[in-house]
């Protein structure tokens, strides 16, 4: 679709790393540290990812849902907004925005199926609909989000390395376990992923990078953050974060019940 990132609310709402990493006061009172705060966001991102696979929506819906989730917690606390309920609600809202609607009851069904042993994840349809209203308020009703996938394809074709599409796409998917989408423009994230892919696949596109009117230092810094993420968090591809790490943190958070 026709769009211009530079005049969008997404561009205007870009934050600094410091603002994103700020723990809300209510959560801090409960003893949640910055590291634990990050772990909860990673865990719930994984939760959205698994739930999306069940309801069979496209990657862009997942990306939008994760962006909504992380943006909410730059303004609201996890104490007030239970992340267990906010995650499926973001997916529900994103499916509407991206015009791939998913029924709320279908989500309730799959949540029960996935989290049978944990009653804290058990919600009803009305719970989701109520949270949707709150979520819209928290997001100030700005629901359009720009993702790196579209510039990624454009840049790969221009550089002449379309054979790295899958590899770079995978790296972009992994960036949604982080807050990069709230900090940097989409094309910068795409360039960083291409930068990592070209190095790992031994593609010499130095001349192409030289011609770009872009600050390569920023691209390098983004690349380093991505690599630090891979080095710090040993995530299981299927189960996500280890249970022994995430369970204590989730217990600190209150549940609606």
């Amino acid at each position: 679709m026709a769009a211009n990132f530079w005049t969008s609310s997404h561009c205007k709402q870009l934050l600094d790393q410091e603002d994103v990493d700020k723990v809300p006061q209510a959560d801090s009172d409960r003893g949640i540290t910055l590291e634990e705060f990050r772990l909860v966001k990673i865990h719930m991102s994984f939760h959205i990812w698994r739930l999306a696979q069940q309801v069979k929506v496209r990657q862009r819906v997942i990306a939008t849902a994760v962006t909504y989730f992380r943006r909410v917690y730059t303004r609201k606390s996890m104490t007030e907004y239970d992340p267990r309920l906010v995650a499926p609600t973001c997916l529900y809202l994103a499916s509407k925005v991206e015009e791939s609607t998913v029924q709320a009851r279908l989500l309730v069904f799959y949540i029960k199926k996935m989290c049978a042993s944990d009653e804290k994840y058990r919600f009803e349809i009305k719970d989701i609909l109520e949270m949707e209203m709150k979520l819209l308020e928290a997001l100030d009703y700005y629901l359009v989000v720009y993702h790196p996938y579209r510039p990624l394809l454009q840049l790969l074709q221009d550089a002449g390395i379309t054979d790295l599409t899958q590899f770079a796409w995978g790296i972009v998917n992994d960036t949604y376990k982080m807050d990069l989408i709230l900090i940097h423009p989409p094309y910068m994230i795409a360039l960083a992923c291409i930068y990592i892919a070209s190095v790992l696949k031994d593609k010499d596109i130095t001349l192409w990078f030289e011609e770009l009117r872009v600050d390569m230092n920023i691209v390098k810094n983004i690349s380093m953050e991505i690599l630090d993420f891979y080095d710090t968090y040993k995530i299981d591809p299927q189960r996500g974060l280890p249970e022994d790490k995430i369970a204590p943190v989730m217990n600190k958070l209150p549940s609606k019940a």
Partner: protein
Amino acid sequence: MFFFFIVVFRRQQQLAPYKLKCDKEPLNNKLGPPDYYPQTPNCPEETLTKEYVQSGYKETVEGIEEAREIVLSQIPYFCKTDIVVKCKEALKKRLRAINDSRAQKRKAGQVYGVPLFGSLLIKPGVYPEQRPCNEDTRRKWAEALSQPNKRLRSLSEHVPHGYRRKSLLDVLTRYNVPLLRATWFVKVTYLNQPQVRSTSVSTSAGGSDNHRSNQWTNDVVEYLQQLLDEFCLKEVPPSFREQSSPGLIAGVTQVKMKSEAPPAVGDIDEPLVHFKWWYMVRLIQWHLAEELLVPSVLIEWLFNQFQERVAVEALELLMPVALGMIDIITLSQTYVRMFVEILVRRLSDGPVVDNPKRAHISSVIAEVLRYMVLAVPDTFVSLDCFPLPSFVVPDVYSRGALLKITAGGGIAGSKRQDGYRYLSCGYAVCSIQKRSYDLATVANPNFQARGAAKVVQALDKALVTGNLTMAYLSLFNDLSDALMEERWIKEVSPCLQSSLMWIGTVESSLICSVFFLCEWATCDYRDCRTSLLRNVKFTGRRDLSQVHLAVSILKNKMDEINNLSRSKSSSRIAVNNTAKGSSLNNTSLAATVSDSSGLRNNAKSVDEKDKKDIFESPGPLHDIIVCWLDQHEVNSAVGFKRVDVLIIELIRSGIFYPQAYVRQLIISGITDKNDTLLDVERKRRHRRILKQLPGSSLFEILEEDRITEEQHLYEMMSTYSSERRLVLSELSTGQAFDANSRGEYASSSCVPKASDLFLASGGDKHGRVPEQVEDVKALVSSMLRFINPHSVEEEHCQIKTNPQGSSASTVTQIDTVDVKHDCEDCARTKRQKLDERASPLQGFPLIQSDEEDIWWVRKGTKLHESLKAEPAQKPIKQNSRGRAKVVRKTQSLAQLASSRIEGSQGASTSHLCESKVGCSHHKPSIDVDNVKDVDHMKIVDLSEVGKSLKRLRLLERRSVSVWLLKSVRQLIEVNEMAASKASNSVSSFSSQSDDKTLLKWRLGDEELLSILYILDICCDLVSGARFLVWLLTKVRGGMATSGQTGRSATHIKNRENQVCQIGEALVFSSLLRYVAFDVTSLQMSRAMIDLNKWVSWQMIMKILVTRELCFPIPFSSLSALMSQCKMCCRFFHDVSCVFLIPEKRKTLCLSCPCT
């Protein structure tokens, strides 16, 4: 209802933010701005279908399946720690590469060092604009500019308008504005220059930034000029003169005076000039550092002032400016040279002791020169300024001068440093001078072998055109190769050089030129006439024109050398005249007996002189040629032949004396050396050359070419022969050479026998004549039928003359010959018979193998046809001599030969006549067998003559050619005399007239062609050309004589036909042959004629070359051609005069009583 409201609200929110305008910079040329996607005509969003409403818009991703879109992740890939670390390092490394490459690209496009460049001029409002204001406001603003506490930002808001050029600089100097703020003000002013330029006279458009720098520099120079002029016009008070000498101290003093108290009006003007000047000096230095000023403009102005200003005070003002720019001056060699010249001139102006200020200036100049010597010594290498004045090089006086300068505050440390500086400068100057000398030496290179190519071209060109002038000048002027001279001179043996009398006095360049010429003549250099020789080939022999050309050049050189030494030349001429007189008197000795005693006395004195001259080197050319022979190496048979021809031609030209050559070899002791292989090679070379120079043949050649007494030549040749034999025996190495030497000795011992046997038949001279040469001469005589009554008479006359004129030694040798003759007479007779029998058998193979001989066979056939053409005359002879006919028929061929031999040995005259009559009687017979015998005999003679000549050595062949031409000339002259006499008395001697006609018939086409054939084999082309020229005169002379007679038409036509046959057809065709084959020969013939005759000869050459004539030429046409050009007539007349002497001899011989 609530849901419906929510949906409507959501749509309104989505439509609002879509504004498709982007001012973001594109990523690169192909990609647009990042994250910007303009609206396209075929958007899926434009259509809304049921499918889209139910399942939303589906975008397919190329390269990724929809099912794997979500699953793709690189988390498993990065589980390994090593990969993450390596990836980080690689990313950093590649980032450095990208950044470095970008930096280089930026630098390549950036221009450094250009003042006031870039965005400062592009962006509006970057520099402050000037505003008009009143005088009071401007003054206040200027005062604020000079105060450091006032900020430039506030001042920039109200920059006054109107300051430019002199007013600008006056403001800066008056208020002593700090240099940084002054620079800012200057930049602001000149950045606003377009506005100012519109009001100025100059109408040029806004130029580049360099234009602004030029303008600013010109303004500064103009201001400095004004200050300097203002200062020089005023008289300086004594009090300020002392203060101004330290330089900056004056400025400080003036500032203090100004700040302390306001001075009087009269005092302000004078110190203000100094203050302004020093302020400008500092400003110039600052702006040069910022590159606001153009150094070249300032330097040129400065140098002009140094040259124009004479006052010491002016130098004091200018020197600080020069010192500030000294680093810029040293970067340019041109500026260094100009500055050094100016400074050296300044140092040499006036005495130094009188004026202390001048001494100070001189000291500063000396320091500047020392600085430049040490900073840029290479520039001084090409600068001719040494020796420098004593101020610059270290010496006591310079130190004394320095002591005077620093008398007030003398410091030992500074003195020591100055000493070191002097020494280092002295060393630098020495190095510079040494390097200048080395470069000057290298700058005069020796052009090695450069002239050789030019000389070769000139010589090759001379071969084509025949013009020796250019070749002569090029050879003796352009050829200058020191290395070649040294190499060639070294190759000559030192002992031989010491024995040569002229070699020490000759320049090496002359030696080199002669060596080069001899090499060119005898070696296969480039021959540009190869194409000509393809079409023209008469005798099939190699071209020897180079040899003749070289001989001509050497003759010219010899004449030049002789002209330089006039005394020797005149003495030689006297000797020659005396010799000629002696020879003439000797020929008339038989007639006049009473004068014999007086002539003998004169002859003795002449003998002594001739002996000395003959056995000494004739000149430097002879010695040079001996040296060349000593070192010359021949690589092919053709080279050997050319060397031989060259030597013989040099002998005939009087340049080379074999007798002197032999004596020089003996004196040098070269024959005794066997130390090295080189010595053996030298001996072999000299031996080979001497073998080609037998004394007997040389005798005839020298007699032919040089008018010397026969007796003196005989003595010289006998001495030469003995010395030559001695040298040859010593030069021989190995057993084979010994055998050859013995063979030569045996052959030489037979010479008297041969001469004795053929005393009456063929030999002109009785003496040491080789047997083979005599045999060849006999063959030629028989072929051409030289035997006739007149020849016999001539021989008898000579026999009577020789005994009276010969010396005692000659008589002794004759006695020896007689003794040997008695012992071996029978054996000699037997040998002759065997030769006669073998010759017919050997003739046939030669005919088949040699094409030239086949050609002559055809000529023989033609001769046979001519015999048949005259049947009318022969019956008369047959009727008158019937008795003899009967007697001869019964004899065989062998008996006829033996009868001829007996007759020649001493028979009476009547017997000889009988044998001749018998031969003539035998020819008219029509019998077929007799005719075949005659043809067979002719063929044998022709082939045998050629074969015999080829076996002879070159010098021996030349002796044969000389003898042949001499005999033919005599016979022709005798026939002419007989014809003239016959015409005077026709009726009484009708029978004698028939005999004369028969004799003249022998000199027809066949005889002439045979003579030319022999001359070609002898390689005597020059003699052939001369003979033809001489024959032309005879042909024309015969016509004239017959014209004068005026007798009956029958007789005139008959004689004209016979003479014209030779003249018209054969002589011209022969000349054409020589022209086509060897132009140089004719050119050499031209050398015999004076320069005045050159025009006439050129005309003849032109006629021949253009081939306008047809053969045979009618007599009327030839006569008309000759009459048109008077010079031609005179030419023939002069040529005929050269050959009058032999004619006179014939006249005298005819008057002998033996006839």
